[in-house]
């Protein structure tokens, strides 16, 4: 019987980890050493009084030993083993199904992890299938696209008739002009509706699978990236609102951010910040020098003051973005690493040295920005501790047209960057197979 087998292995494992001899434990439990030996090798069932006494002798919880849940665990592991044999990703050595009970008995933790992973794989496969299905069979999307294609066909044929027929009768000309106008209106409306729909589904799709970072971004975005409560009262309590975030990891990030914002607020009160911006412009280094604050704090304050139009990204020493405030014309990547050409990374490599560049984000409607980046390091653990390095990049929208040759072309991230011939490209763009 599986459960008994399991119990024997567990008893043996426990005894050996305590470094105790069979004879001692058997004596403590009031049974013979040879009987214990049989139990430990799963050749005798163990239950009732004997089990309780053995558990007591080994300082174990009887409930854990009985392990009723282990049957489900064994099933999960069997299905994991079955799933792994198919396809080219299969393990080269087959799972030892005949030793399954032994595995669960000896490594209950690892067995649980494996079973948990198997369950998670199943969920993810389902989610992928559902998303796939949705893209392929979305009825609304299909209809909307069909409608637009119809309008486009009509426009194309009608326009060609108008352009290519020299002797077109006036009444036909009028009719076709009328059709063209009606179709172009239909196209405009259709395109608008489609964009609205896709934006809607994007929000919906992301709500299902969000990272804690996305959760923080979403929360701050809904608040306009500004925590007004802290301006009025730096000790304002935001716990209630943070509690509304979905995951514990997201709430942790939000708590950290609020603590940071509180410190920033105390170092740089809004009135002083506005006055400094008035006299120096958005120069974080100058304002920091004047206020005796650190440059990153000034960047955060500038980008999160009420009505700020500046974008801000902050990264850690590994280049991972820890703060992402988008602005019109700049959308930091949600997944994967950012564009290697961002001045942010220049500043990260040379802490304490201001880096400034005029940028244009590749792609349509690339708006010009003045980027100001700054890296800094701290040693919260003192001389014996580790160095914590951070860099921030403030993106100031440039007013008025700028000449393209004065701007450095950068992207968000390689996957969605249309820039061709970039020497720093890390992977091909999904926008076109030819972009390398």
């Amino acid at each position, binding site marked *: 019987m599986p459960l008994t087998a399991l119990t024997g292995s567990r008893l043996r494992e426990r005894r050996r980890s305590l470094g105790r001899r069979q004879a001692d434990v058997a004596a403590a439990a009031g049974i013979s050493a040879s009987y214990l030996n049989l139990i430990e090798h799963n050749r005798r069932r163990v239950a009732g009084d004997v089990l309780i006494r053995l558990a007591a002798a080994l300082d174990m919880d009887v409930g854990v030993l009985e392990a009723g849940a282990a049957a489900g665990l064994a099933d999960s592991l069997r299905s994991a083993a079955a799933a792994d044999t198919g396809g080219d990703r299969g393990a080269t050595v087959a799972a030892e199904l005949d030793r399954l009970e032994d595995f669960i008995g000896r490594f209950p933790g690892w067995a649980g992890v494996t079973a948990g992973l198997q369950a998670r794989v199943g969920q993810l496969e389902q989610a992928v299938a559902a998303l796939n299905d949705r893209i392929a069979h979305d009825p609304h999307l299909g209809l909307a696209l*069909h409608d637009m*294609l119809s309008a486009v*066909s*009509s426009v*194309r*044929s009608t326009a060609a*008739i108008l352009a290519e027929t020299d002797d077109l009768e006036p009444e036909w000309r009028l009719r*076709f002009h009328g*059709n063209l106008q*009606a179709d172009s209106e239909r196209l405009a409306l259709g395109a608008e509706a489609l964009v609205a729909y896709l934006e809607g589904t994007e929000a919906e799709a992301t709500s299902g699978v969000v990272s804690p970072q996305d959760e923080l971004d979403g929360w701050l975005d809904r608040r306009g990236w500004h925590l007004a409560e802290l301006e009025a009262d730096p000790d304002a309590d935001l716990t209630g609102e943070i509690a509304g975030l979905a995951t514990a990891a997201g709430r942790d990030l939000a708590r950290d951010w609020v603590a940071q914002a509180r410190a920033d607020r105390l170092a740089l009160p809004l009135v002083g910040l506005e006055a400094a911006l008035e006299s120096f412009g958005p120069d974080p280094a100058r304002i920091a020098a004047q206020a005796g604050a650190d440059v990153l704090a000034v960047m955060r304050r500038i980008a999160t003051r009420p009505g700020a139009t500046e974008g801000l990204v902050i990264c850690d020493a590994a280049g991972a973005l820890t703060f992402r405030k988008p602005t019109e014309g700049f959308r930091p990547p949600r997944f994967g690493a950012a564009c290697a050409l961002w001045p942010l990374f220049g500043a990260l490599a040379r802490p304490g040295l201001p880096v400034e560049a005029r940028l244009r984000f590749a792609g349509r409607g690339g708006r010009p920005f003045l980027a100001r980046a700054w890296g800094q390091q701290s040693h919260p653990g003192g001389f014996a501790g580790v160095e914590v390095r951070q860099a921030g990049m403030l993106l100031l929208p440039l007013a008025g047209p700028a000449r393209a040759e004065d701007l450095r072309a950068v992207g968000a991230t390689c996957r969605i960057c249309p820039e061709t011939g970039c020497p720093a490209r890390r992977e091909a763009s999904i926008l076109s197979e030819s972009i390398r």
Partner: protein
Amino acid sequence: MWPGGNGEGGGSLARHAMLIEDEPNIAEAIRFLLGRDGWQVTTLPDGVQAETAVRSARPDLLILDLMLPGRSGLEVLEALRADPETAALPVLMLTAKGQGRDRLAAQEAGADLFMAKPFSNAEFVAAARALVGA
């Protein structure tokens, strides 16, 4: 007056195309194009009466939109192919991009040629001619 209609075929009867298309502006453009090319064109806005209309009008060519309201082009095609009287009628199927599976089904149901929207006018007229051997 129907442009390029009767008479340009040099006395012979004009080729007759029946068009089943629910988009009035596309139907109008096709009527004009084929009319200029010397065809007589009748149009239906949906596939409900298709077989009856085909049997009574006996067109030389049927131009059938795949996605029609009420009754799909595929159903119409299957019904026509099942009837010995209309089984050999050349059928030009209008599809939209992205209807890969429907198109495959129509091919199996016996469509003679496919034209994906949006199409070029010249190619469309050439396809219509090719199907009736003109």
